[in-house]
């Protein structure tokens, strides 16, 4: 093992300080920045349990129903006796059916029905409709960097103090209409909740989780350098702690060679010949599907610190990430044609917060004639490059480096807006340079 850095102890120290501030601090808010897979959810669960144990009922605000249900299940795992309220919408099927099997969970569409429970959890959208209730003393806001400032405005009256947890490197919240008119205002409604919070309350304590338990030793340095240059983090495991191997030897084709490269080094770039293509580039989509097919066919097994024995990499441990929804739909269709089911195929926005053994990514700039702000967004690439525990294979057309050089960032600089660093252009170059060392050229 490495000397001088004990990831477990470092993480415990950080968590201890956060909990201390939460339980005994005097500030109204605490902000925790967490890199990908650093135990954010674990922290939320632990803070919620400790607050409840100390006799402080609290509300938890997450961003999606899936996140809410996941938190409820995790809380029940840790403490099956603790009364938890799940506030849900009045639509049909508002929550995961798993919750019906948990005895400690009360579910209701009305906040009044859940009054008095130790912990009440819901989405920000649902909380925004809760009116005329006694404010909670404490709140935990999960994925606070993905929450929009106006969503926080709608719920902030419900609590007196709050713990804000989130990953600053992921995708920023967005708005479907222009919001330039408010750019630079401290309370720009389209900005993230944390940026508004800190602009008005700069004195709030800010913490950082220093260890990524998800990313392998091969990925943490790249993701840390490319996306978190000023707040570096380490991986919780070392080189050699994790291993990906295949039961079936390579047949020498491009997809097999890139899988071997990725198993060996953690990264693989399958480079197709340069070409301008429509978004749903049929060759690239097919290449993505083939890589997944071969990964499953070759009997991939993953060895990690989680289990004594190697665990087979099954379809549910694999994800495909794209930039656009039509690309995801095209990949799904291609996978169905190859008879693959059970693999998560989604856009970066929807893969946020999820974890897999192996990911296959269709590069956002592959085959494009231009590099728009959408495709250059730092968070998009960061999400796609940080979902895996073992290996990440990127499928891309040749020529993205040239494309980047032809399209320097030209976004207008707005007065009063904190410049995000690194910009997507820089981060894309950093990732590409690293991937180039793991390149497999292939002509389908």
């Amino acid at each position, binding site marked *: 093992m490495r000397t001088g850095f004990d990831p477990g102890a470092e993480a415990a120290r950080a968590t201890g300080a956060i909990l201390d501030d939460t339980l005994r601090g005097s500030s109204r808010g605490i902000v925790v920045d967490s890199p990908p897979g650093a135990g954010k959810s674990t922290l939320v669960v632990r803070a919620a349990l400790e607050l409840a144990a100390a006799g402080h009922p609290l509300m938890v605000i997450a961003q999606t129903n899936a996140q809410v249900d996941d938190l409820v299940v995790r809380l029940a795992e840790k403490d099956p006796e603790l009364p938890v309220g799940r506030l849900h919408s009045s639509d049909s099927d508002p929550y995961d059916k798993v919750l019906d099997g948990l005895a400690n969970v009360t579910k209701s569409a009305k906040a009044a029905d859940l009054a008095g429970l130790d912990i009440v959890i819901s989405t920000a959208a649902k909380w925004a409709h809760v009116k005329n209730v006694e404010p909670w003393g404490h709140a935990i806001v999960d994925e606070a960097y993905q929450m929009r400032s106006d969503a926080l405005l709608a719920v902030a009256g419900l609590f007196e103090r709050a713990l804000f947890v989130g990953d600053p490197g992921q995708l920023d919240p967005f708005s479907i209409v222009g919001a330039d008119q408010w750019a630079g205002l401290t309370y720009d409604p389209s900005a993230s909740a944390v940026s508004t919070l800190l602009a*008005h309350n700069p004195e709030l304590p800010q913490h950082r989780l220093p260890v990524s338990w998800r990313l392998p030793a091969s990925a943490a340095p790249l993701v840390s350098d490319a996306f978190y240059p000023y707040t570096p983090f380490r991986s919780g495991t070392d080189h050699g702690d994790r291993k990906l191997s295949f039961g079936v030897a390579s047949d020498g084709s491009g997809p097999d060679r890139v899988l071997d490269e990725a198993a060996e080094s953690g990264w693989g770039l399958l480079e197709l010949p340069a070409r301008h293509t429509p978004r749903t580039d049929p060759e690239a989509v097919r290449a993505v599907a083939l890589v997944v097919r071969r990964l499953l066919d070759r009997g991939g097994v993953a060895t990690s610190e989680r289990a004594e024995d190697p665990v087979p990499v099954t379809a549910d441990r694999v994800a495909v990430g794209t930039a656009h929804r039509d690309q995801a739909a095209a990949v799904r269709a291609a996978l169905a044609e190859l008879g693959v089911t059970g693999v998560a195929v989604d856009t970066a926005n929807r893969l946020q917060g999820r974890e897999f053994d192996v990911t296959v990514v269709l590069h956002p700039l592959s085959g494009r004639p231009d590099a728009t702000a959408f495709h250059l967004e730092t968070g998009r690439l960061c999400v796609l490059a940080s979902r895996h525990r073992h290996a990440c294979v990127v499928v891309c057309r040749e020529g993205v480096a040239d494309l980047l050089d032809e399209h320097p960032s030209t976004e207008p600089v707005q007065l009063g807006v904190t410049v995000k660093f690194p910009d997507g252009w820089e981060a894309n170059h950093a990732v590409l340079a690293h991937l180039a060392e793991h390149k497999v050229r292939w002509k389908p």
Partner: protein
Amino acid sequence: MSLITTLARLEAVDSGRAQPLATVRHRHLTDRPLVLVPLTTAGEAGAPLGALVGTDREAPRLLAVAQPRDRDLRFAFLAELAEAVLPHIEACADVVEPAERNETDPATGKKTKVEVELCLDAAQVIVPSRAGVEFVRLLGRSMRFRRTAEDNPDTPYPAPARVPLLGRWLTHYGERARVPGSSLLLASTDLLNRHWATGQSSLEDQHLGALLSWIDPPAGSSGAEAALRAELARDGEGQLLCPPAGPATDPDFDNRLLAPAIERYDRARTALASAEDGLAADARLGELSAAEREIRSLLARVMLPTWDAVWRGLDLLRQLPEGARAEDRWTRDRWSFTAHRDRVRSGEPPQPRRDDAVTAAQKLASRETAQAQLEAQEALDDPLVLAGRRLAGEAFLGTVSGVEMAYTESKRPSPRPLVTVRTDERPHLGERTKVYRSLDGKPQTAEFVRAEQETDQDGEILLVLRILDRMGRSKEPAPGSVPEPGERIAWTLFEHDQRGGPKLPDPEETPWTHGGPPGADAATRAEQPDPVTPEDLL
């Protein structure tokens, strides 16, 4: 850019003519829109140079500033603009119909219906280009805080009486123009670009002359040639045949014609000021008004082609029938117009320089709702727009091939019929994805159950959908509420209506995360007026 727009643009390049993007007009046009063609002075932000304004295409009113750096003349221009624009607005403000509005009683918190006035029609303003909208906003901002002698007799350089009022209205129009689908203040280029795709870049599409050349090229010429001519062709004096639609002017016009004319005007003014006797003054006054006339005719010359182009664009748009739901959006514009009228009449102060946190969040939320609603309404109104959504997998057309009755498993079973639809399209349906169709103008919801394979030789697939609502309260669905076999139905994956967002706190209750109520931190971040510098008082 969507795939169908790309295709339309390729076809436009191929055929040399703009291709339609819509079969109906998606913006309401009133019978008497006010057209405003403004010009600004190069290098002098917010200094208007001239304008053509009016509701009669045969008789535009010409406003000009002979020396744009002279603030008295600038105020005179703005006063004249107020006289041209405000009567148009006020004419609409006085014609009302009774309407009802839901209001929350502050005492009981109950919702009640209140009788209010709604303006029968709102005053519509059309400018040539998006930069024109921006200029309207700038004019509004520069005028609404001015003080008149009536406001405060001691104010230095008082503004003419109606100028601040015009500023408030123009600010309202500029702000309303940011709401997707609104038609209170429209740019001619935006209107045309919504309805036609040209074979040039979207940057070039901002040139009104070039855009019209693509849509309606002169006989015997292709759109591309005509557009190139519109952009580049100059007369013997080196002046553009199709001057820019403003507010910026062509530098060649500024340098060769306008600057010398203004210089002559300045000289005539100086000469008049130094005239020593009445006779000389008379002669010099004549020179001065000749110099002014020259400037006016120069400005008229560069604005008239734009004036005509705007009206020509309106003619082209009026050839399209109005989309069914455009009227609904126009009603919202009328509400917005009426609400501003009421604010002005009740003596509220001008719109603040910046929105507070709550207002900004409210505006953003309502614009997002408007955007989603606009996209849905345009697709429902227009088969060509729907085709674009179908191509993107967000909607599909299918023929009902079978209906199987099914019921919910509860004590009082409700109908949940399974409808099988045959289609050759490939919508992006996932398990339990909701789809919607329009039933008597109201959306009916269904959810995707499964795809019955196989693809037959025509490339058609069978999709099974479960109808969820709008079938009445009884066990058997209301007549006509379940699709019949053979019916051809358009289903969309997007919702037709938008739910309103949550109620935000009142501005006085702005939470600590957003800096507390406005003015709470006034001591630390109060807005100080700019300090007076020697340049302010020349």
